């Protein structure tokens, strides 16, 4: 299995290089190869996770190793799904490296044995962390789309069409991609927080304890809720939306690590 995991890492890494190469040289064949590699890596990764589940009997979201690996998988998965509608080639150049970094770190982390909670609790925990991981993946993609948006917007505003102007897609596409990721991510985040609250009640007997993680999670939710509301209500888009997405994701990332490390 670890051999397969290594192969997954290799695929992601090669795919990352391919996407970067495509941005640099603008040659279609490089892009195609990078794409295939990402698919191969994703399929292998899926098998790895399936085997892990089979071996340990739980969905691999219980320690940082498992969660990071699952996060990498989810990022690639969400990207591949969103790409069906939004043909955003250059985004792979950020998504693939993120997946690579996640799985590489995951592969280096210790794998402490997981104490399985009783069935019902375990189910809640799995639901809680699992949905949050997929939500995080969607927000990561939203964040990348936001970063690319800011780069492209700057080139157009400052009237200096340069390296990126040619290589990046239209503002419209970047903005739509961010929006779509937000729409995927937000329900996941909401559901993840609700299940988390219920889980907390089961474990600690209280729904909400005001510890830093919970506060951060709450802030994240508020940020994204505000963003989504503005987008829906007054058609907020463009630069401000991109910045807010990036800020939201950074807070989310903090929460994620605080959860496993703290």
């Amino acid at each position, binding site marked *: 299995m670890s051999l397969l995991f290594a192969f997954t890492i290799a695929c992601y890494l090669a795919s990352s290089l391919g996407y970067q190469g495509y941005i640099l040289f603008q040659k279609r064949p490089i892009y195609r190869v990078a794409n295939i590699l990402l698919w191969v890596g994703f399929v292998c990764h899926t098998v790895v996770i399936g085997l892990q589940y089979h071996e340990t009997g739980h969905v691999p979201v219980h320690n940082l190793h498992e969660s990071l690996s699952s996060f990498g998988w989810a990022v690639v998965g969400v990207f591949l799904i969103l790409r069906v509608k939004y043909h955003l080639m250059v985004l792979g150049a950020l998504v693939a490296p993120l997946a690579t970094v996640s799985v590489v770190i995951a592969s280096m982390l210790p794998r402490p044995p997981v104490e399985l909670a009783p069935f019902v609790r375990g189910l809640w925990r799995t639901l809680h962390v699992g949905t949050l991981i997929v939500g995080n993946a969607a927000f990561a993609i939203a964040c990348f789309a936001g970063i690319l948006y800011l780069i492209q917007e700057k080139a157009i*505003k400052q009237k200096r069409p340069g390296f990126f102007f040619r290589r990046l897609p239209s503002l419209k596409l970047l903005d739509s991609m961010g929006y779509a990721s937000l729409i995927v991510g937000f329900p996941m985040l909401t559901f993840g927080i609700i299940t988390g609250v219920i889980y907390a009640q089961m474990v600690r007997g209280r729904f909400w304890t005001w510890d830093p993680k919970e506060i951060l999670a709450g802030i994240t939710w508020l940020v994204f809720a505000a963003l989504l509301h503005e987008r829906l209500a007054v058609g907020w888009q463009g630069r401000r939306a991109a910045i807010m997405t990036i800020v939201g994701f950074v807070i989310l990332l903090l929460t994620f690590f605080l959860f496993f490390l703290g």
Partner: protein
Amino acid sequence: MAGKRHIVTIGLNHKTAPVEIRERLAFSKEDTPLVLEAMGQHACVDEIALFSTCNRVEFLLASQDAPNAVEAVKDFMAEFKNTPRHTFEQSLYVYHGDEAVRHIFRVAASLDSMVVGEPQILGQIKESYLHACDYRTCGVVLNRLMHRSFSVAKRVRTETGIGDHAVSISYAAVELGRKIFGELEAKAVLLLGAGEMAELAVEHLANNRAQPIFVANRTFERGLELAERFRGTAIRFEEVRDYLRQVDIVISSTGAREYILVRDDFKGLMRARKNRPLFFIDIAVPRDIDPEINRINNVYVYDIDDLKTAIQENIDERQQEALRGERIVDAAVIQFRRWFQSLDVVPTVIALRDKMEALRQKELKKTFGSLGATSEEDRAAIDRLTAALVNKILHGPTVFLKQSANKDEKALYVDMTRKLFSLDEPGEAEPEPQG
């Protein structure tokens, strides 16, 4: 033995002739058959093709009597176009041999165009070539040359960035619009004022399916006229601010002394627009749109200088890419020369003999090696026998090649011979298959 065929181009283009002369000498589609038929039958002309576009008129010839063929073409142009020779003779250029080949390659690859890298020229040349094929005025040489020029043009286009990126104001506007809106389809355009460049930009946007189109002019009648042309709607100049709520692209080109839109006009506007991006292309000098407006979120203002800067980068880049294109052309000229020279009978006969002799020596060596002890005499006899055999075999083809009277056929047979006996291998062969 008949003389060798020469390749000649004779023509004029936007660099050598002003438009008055070019339009005078341009050959229409209807003219082409007459020209090809008349010139194709001329004694000095073996093969001929004619390209005529708004920027150039070119005759491409293969002839054994180049000087007279050139004269014949000049006379023909003067007569056919009813224009005295001296009025256009100074504008004509005549290229021979390699230079003619290079010229055709450069023209096809759009290295010789007014806007370097513009893609239409290749299509025009292909069409002209098809005409020449229809009238059977192209032979072995021109067929090969034309197919070569197509593949050179294709290589230059794919291997260099010569055709990338906009180099005119209106194209740059479209390119920028695409980077902002993605698709231009169903993006509403508002034209303020009038003017050639602005109208061209609107036209380009409309060609990219931007619509509806609104036109606002100080004189409403003029606005109506323009609106009709773009199948749009004329609005009153006072209504412009209201229409800012629904349009996406504004092209401005009025003669106003002051800004016609300032930042204050945008209060509440973006909210009313639901923050949809708004793109201003301000072609007017002095400017119509306050540059401060560019600082508003989701609003982009480009004035004429901004567009020119954007284009200049692209032009510089094209120039760089054109240099790479020239290198591809140089290599192709050398390659073509090799093939062309091989059409001569004598080198072909020598190559054929050399090849046979080499084969004979090789086989002799093998045979003597395996025969073991043989006398000097026997060896000499075998040597004579094989030499005679080779001579007898080659006699027929050699005589045939040297005597075939028709020049067109001769080139064909020489070409065929080289292929039959693979005389161009190894190393010397044309790397690409016949086009």
